[in-house]
Each structure stands twice: as structure tokens, then as C-alpha cells.
């Protein structure tokens, strides 16, 4: 009861400050009087924030990684330099640029590092005074940000920068970062809206969103470090972790012991996040021509809540091979739990000489569908000389950590223990004898009988 009141108070106070501060931002008068000259204006009262920010993953797009096979302990990894078949490139290979004209004579800007709160002149991972001055603080902190100003612009010297809204209107209307603040980038990752992770933080899709909770209520930000979890495909991190059990819930949160008994073997997400969405497969070797004359990677898409996850043991360490990125673990290692994953499969070019996945510059294929020209450009950028491209598939397991379903859609006893349940007990390592026990109605019959309403 006390716990419930505490939670309600927390929610109420959270709700009160959503969108705006509880009180007016104390810096408003100063900015009205002196104008907004970028981060240095904020630093008058918040010294050190810019330098702090450029040390985080949201600026560097990389960090040291220690739970993934085959990575070097002293190097950094992230969207800056990784290559995998959701994107088949990274900030380096797909540096923001104007692509060649298509057959209708049209060009456009394209690049992975457009998901970066700098101005591109100061790019991913840059540092020093110019980088600190280039941070788009208002992108995350203003509630009156004019997003039409945040777009690529080609300068006279041919270089491309990303515009920012540095108006006094934006700078004098600060508010708490909301879902849409974070979704500015997280929504369109992977080449379009809800392609990569395919989760929506909307009231209908998630019980927390229905209670007006926002990203940073769970991802509690500390000195601009954003906590993350252990999605096998999210390597870069700021050293802080968030999980269901910990700051918000306990390992035994149910009134019902029969459910609590599962939590040492089954992750919370497995029962509570029964569906996901987003792209399930892409082909980077053959692009699809759109009516506008541009091409895009051929993509099979699913709406939010349309995809059933795959279930696997996961001990929070990650297998990383050219054909597979995903969870490691087993029933017997004493550390693993069964987690849900969104399985994605991507076809791209591999180097026959060493079996490694090759990356692709999107400029050429976007304009004319020539995917091998994209590979040639990428290998040139990376200095890879000895290669022979052959098409192949890679399977990736993405964590499925959002869209906590309403209670009625939570997996129930029979979702798993009926003979046609969602878990492949055999694949998960259970013996035939164990399976016949786990799929015997004895496990749930009496309980469901008692709960069954008269009919």
C-alpha cells in the first residue's frame, strides 16, 4: 500500500512537470536580455555542461565494450564505426552528403550522422572548443524548437552542415525532454519511421506511456549519461544501466508466488512484452526503386505490435560473427534467463577473401541502384583493397525491451505450458521428460479452474 502511494505520488509529480518545468526556467530573463549564442549562453549559469556532453555516447557514438565476442578491449565501438545488416554502414562510410543525381535529375542529402546533435562541421566524436560550441542544446531542451531549421544545408565551399534552431524563442521556452525529444532520432533509425527497433511509446502500445511516463522516467539521465540495458545490438554505453527490476520493480513483484517463481529463469520482458515491430528483413544487394526515382534497401516491414519475438537464453554476453549477432547463454550456465528478441535478417555483400561483412556507401545505390558501386566506395573510404563481394545473410537478435503490454495481453500460464505454447522447450534445452511435465495441464489446471468464471 505504501509502495503504491509512493508510485502514485511519483507519477503525479512526473505528470505535473511534463512538457514544462514546474516553474519558469530561471535563465529566461537573462536570455531575453542577452540573446542566445549557443551553449556558451547556457554555460554562463551551467558551466561545464558542453564538455560533459561531448564525453557521452550521444556525441561520440562509440564506447569501450566488454560483453561482445571479438572486440578489442582498448578500442571503441558504436554507430560511428560498426557494420551490421540493419544499416550496412556507419557514420564514417555513410557520412552525411549530397548524393549523385538520380534519373529524374534529383539529388538529396543522406547520412547516418544526421542523428547527431552537432552541426556536422563538428561531427561525431569531435572535441575541443569548436565542438563544444556546436552542440544543439535546444534540440533536447526546448519545447518550441522549430524542426524545419534542423536540416542539411550545402555551403558555398561544398561542405554540408546541419542547421539548428538557435532562436531566442526556442531558448526561452525550455522544458523537460519528452518522448518526442528522444524520438527525434530514435524513431527514424534504420532508414525510416519505426524501422529499426519498431517500438512506439504511445498509450495504446505501452502501459507506462499510458500513465504518461516518458523515456527519461526510466532512463534516468545523470550528467548527460543515458543508462541503457543489454540489447545484444546496442554496444555503446555510458556506463549506466537500466533494467525492469532495480530502481522501479523488485525481482519478485507479484502477489502471486506461482508467477514470482519464474523470475529467476525468465526475464520480465518475456511475459510482459509479447509483441514487437519494425523491419524483419532487408536486402542491401538489390534495392527497390521508388516512384520518386530514388532507390532504398528492399525492406520487409511490420507495424508496431505485429511481430512475435523469438525466445532465447541470454547471459548478457554477445555472440558476434559475420553471419550472427545475438545472445549467448544456456540453461545450465547459472547466469542466463529466457529473453524475448526481435529477429532481423539482412542480406548484404560479404568479402569472400576473409568472410567479413562489407559495408556500403548509400550515395550511389540511392541514386541509381548500383549496390556494388556503394561497396566500392565504402572499401575505398576504409582502405580495404583485397576484397571480392559475395551476397549472404546475417541474422541479428535485437532486444525487445519496450511496449509493456496491458495485463490482459501478458503471457499467461497456457501461453507457455500448453502443448502449442510460445516457447520451444526442446530448442531451449529441456529434455523430453521435462517437456512432458512442463506441457501437462497439471501445472495450471486447478489454478485456471478456480479463476474461470461461471458460464
Amino acid at each position, binding site marked *: 500500500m505504501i509502495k503504491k502511494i509512493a508510485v502514485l505520488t511519483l507519477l503525479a509529480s512526473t505528470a505535473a512537470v511534463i512538457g514544462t518545468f514546474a516553474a519558469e526556467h530561471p535563465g529566461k530573463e537573462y536570455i531575453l536580455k542577452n540573446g542566445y549564442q549557443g551553449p556558451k549562453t547556457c554555460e554562463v549559469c551551467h558551466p561545464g555542461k558542453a564538455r560533459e556532453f561531448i564525453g557521452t555516447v550521444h556525441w561520440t557514438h562509440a564506447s569501450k565494450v566488454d560483453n561482445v565476442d571479438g572486440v578489442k578491449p582498448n578500442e571503441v565501438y558504436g554507430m560511428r564505426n560498426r557494420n551490421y545488416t540493419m544499416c550496412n554502414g556507419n557514420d564514417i562510410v555513410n557520412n552525411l552528403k549530397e548524393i549523385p543525381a538520380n534519373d529524374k535529375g534529383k539529388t538529396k542529402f543522406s*547520412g*547516418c*550522422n*544526421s*542523428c547527431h546533435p552537432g552541426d556536422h562541421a563538428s561531427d561525431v566524436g569531435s572535441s575541443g572548443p569548436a565542438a563544444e560550441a556546436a552542440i544543439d542544446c535546444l534540440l533536447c531542451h526546448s519545447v*518550441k*524548437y*522549430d*524542426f*524545419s531549421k534542423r536540416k542539411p544545408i550545402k555551403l558555398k565551399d561544398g561542405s554540408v552542415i546541419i542547421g539548428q534552431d538557435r532562436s531566442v524563442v526556442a531558448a526561452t521556452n525550455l522544458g523537460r525532454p519528452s518522448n*518526442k525529444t528522444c524520438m*527525434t*532520432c530514435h524513431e*527514424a*533509425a*534504420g*532508414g*525510416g*519511421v*519505426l*524501422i529499426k527497433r519498431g517500438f512506439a511509446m*504511445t498509450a495504446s502500445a505501452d502501459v507506462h506511456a499510458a500513465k504518461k511516463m516518458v523515456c527519461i522516467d526510466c532512463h534516468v539521465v545523470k550528467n548527460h549519461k543515458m543508462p541503457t540495458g543489454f540489447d545484444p545490438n546496442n554496444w555503446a554505453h555510458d556506463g549506466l544501466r537500466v533494467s525492469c527490476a532495480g530502481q522501479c520493480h523488485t525481482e519478485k513483484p507479484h502477489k502471486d508466488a506461482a508467477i514470482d517463481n519464474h523470475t529467476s529463469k525468465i526475464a520480465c520482458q518475456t511475459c510482459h512484452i509479447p509483441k514487437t515491430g519494425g523491419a524483419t528483413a532487408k536486402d542491401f544487394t538489390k534495392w527497390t526503386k*521508388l*516512384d*520518386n*526515382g530514388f532507390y*532504398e534497401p528492399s525492406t520487409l516491414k511490420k507495424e508496431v505490435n505485429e511481430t512475435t519475438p523469438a525466445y532465447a537464453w541470454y547471459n548478457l554476453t554477445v555472440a558476434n560473427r559475420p553471419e550472427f549477432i545475438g545472445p549467448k547463454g544456456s540453461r545450465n550456465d547459472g547466469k542466463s534467463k529466457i529473453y524475448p528478441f526481435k529477429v532481423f535478417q539482412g542480406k548484404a555483400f560479404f568479402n569472400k577473401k576473409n568472410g567479413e561483412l562489407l559495408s556500403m556507401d548509400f550515395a550511389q545505390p540511392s541514386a541509381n541502384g548500383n549496390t556494388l558501386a556503394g561497396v566500392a566506395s565504402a572499401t575505398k573510404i576504409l582502405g580495404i583493397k583485397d576484397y571480392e563481394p559475395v551476397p549472404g545473410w546475417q541474422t541479428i537478435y535485437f532486444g525487445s525491451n519496450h511496449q509493456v503490454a496491458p495485463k490482459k495481453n501478458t503471457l499467461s500460464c497456457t501461453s507457455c505450458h500448453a502443448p502449442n505454447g510460445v516457447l520451444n522447450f526442446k530448442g531451449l534445452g529441456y529434455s523430453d521428460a521435462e517437456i512432458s511435465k512442463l506441457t501437462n495441464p497439471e501445472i495450471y489446471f486447478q489454478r485456471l479452474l478456480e479463476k474461470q468464471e461461471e458460464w
Partner: protein
Amino acid sequence: MKKTVSIIVMAVLMMVSIVALSRTAQADEGKMVGTISKLEMSADKKTATVVLKDSKSGEDVTIIITDDLTLDKFNDKRIVEGDEIRCKFEKEGGKNSSKMFKKTAGC
């Protein structure tokens, strides 16, 4: 008496279901990629009327948008004139009402 009533009820039910069925058959679904050539918000900010220039045919298609998430994106200019959109819509009462309205761009 009982029988007549039930016959009438049956008849009404059948008519209703026929109407309902033909309705669903009529509810035309459209899909297109197009560029926003005009974007207008209603005074109460609860609907927007958008003209999309179909990339394939070059024709103008008028779409009505009522979902909050998309309206909000018009409000802070996350979606503006000139943006390219992937849209699914349904013909309802002579109007095209949007069922999905997403920018084609991503990163």
C-alpha cells in the same frame, strides 16, 4: 406473433449486415508516396488538410489527418511542406482520411 417479430428482426439484421458488408467493400484503401505541396491546420488544431503530389502520377491528392502524433509533428515543424511522405489512407464519405503518414527519410 412471436414468429413475425423474429422474421422482422431477421430481415432487419440481414439488411444491416448487407449494408455493413457493402460499406467495407466500398471503403477504398490507398497507398502512395508523395511530396507535401500544401499543409493547412484547422483553427482548433484537431485536423490538418494536406495536399500530396503523387510521385508516380504527379497528381494532387488531398488527405485529412486527425491523429495527435502526426498533428504534433506539423506543430513543431517536424513535418513541413516539401517533405516526402509515405501515406496510407481510406476513402470515407468522399474524403481521404490518413491511416499512416510517415516521412520517407531516416538515418
